[in-house]
């Protein structure tokens, strides 16, 4: 339940992680690596940051599983739709 009283220190630590990961992403973007490697690394960092916000700030970690299903469902739908578009002959990549 969201009535779990996470201590303020937990929220501060999550903030430190979010800020640190964000700065790491910015630093990574300046490295002389291929665009695809940089994109993969930075989007992975963004996914980790989003997960931290959802799990701790939105309390999904301690909430009921049904809310996780509600949150994940649209992502699955969009992922399927995107795969459908990318595999379509209408789109030239």
């Amino acid at each position, binding site marked *: 339940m*969201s009535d779990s009283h996470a201590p303020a220190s937990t929220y501060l630590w999550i903030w430190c992680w979010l800020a640190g990961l*964000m700065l790491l992403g910015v630093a990574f973007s300046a490295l002389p690596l291929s665009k695809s490697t*940089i994109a993969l690394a930075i989007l992975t960092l963004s996914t980790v940051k989003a997960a931290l916000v959802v799990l701790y700030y*939105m309390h999904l970690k301690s909430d009921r599983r049904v809310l996780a299903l*509600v*949150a994940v469902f649209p992502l699955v*739908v969009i992922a399927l739709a995107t795969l459908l578009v990318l595999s379509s002959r209408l789109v030239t990549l």
Partner: protein
Amino acid sequence: MTAVVMHAHPAFGTGHAPVSATGVPSHKLGMWVFLASEVMFFTGLIAAYVVLRLSHPAWPGPEGHLSVALGTTNTLVLICSSMTMVMAFAQVQQDRQRSLRAFLTWTILLGCVFLGIKACEYRVKLTHHILPSTNVFWSCYYTLTGFHAVHVLGGIITNLWVLSLALRHRLTPAKGYVVELAGLYWHFVDIVWIFLFPLLYLI
């Protein structure tokens, strides 16, 4: 149709609140379903951006007209505002009214700072005649950041309303769900920016 029963729920203090058959308070379930629709909206826009980008062999890009420093600052501002928002929720649960008002005020101010920086960015681009019609990148940029800014504005207005309740001593621990629901929306807006920033500024 989801059955609704009435029984005590810790999130509502000692009072009684409608709880759906899933065991989740109805307001909270409703907010998450609303956020799911918002996820569909933004993920659809982002997916369109990715498909457009992959299908353009010569992607124009920002060509040096986007400031990574300003984008980084704005990301930090939103991350800070998410922290102050969740702290506000923690304060209302413990009935610390002064801290609640302070954290809500900080959240609103940080949201305004974000919009102020975004407005400055828009102004600089417009003075350089960079418009949505300039090329496909700027069409995507204005669409994605414009819709996001509207959502930030919506969050600020919501938080102002919540602050007005706090100032009138209407937010007791039993009414803490009001802060929680406003916070869920605010954190969602933060998450959207967490993805928009690297997609538009870094990659």
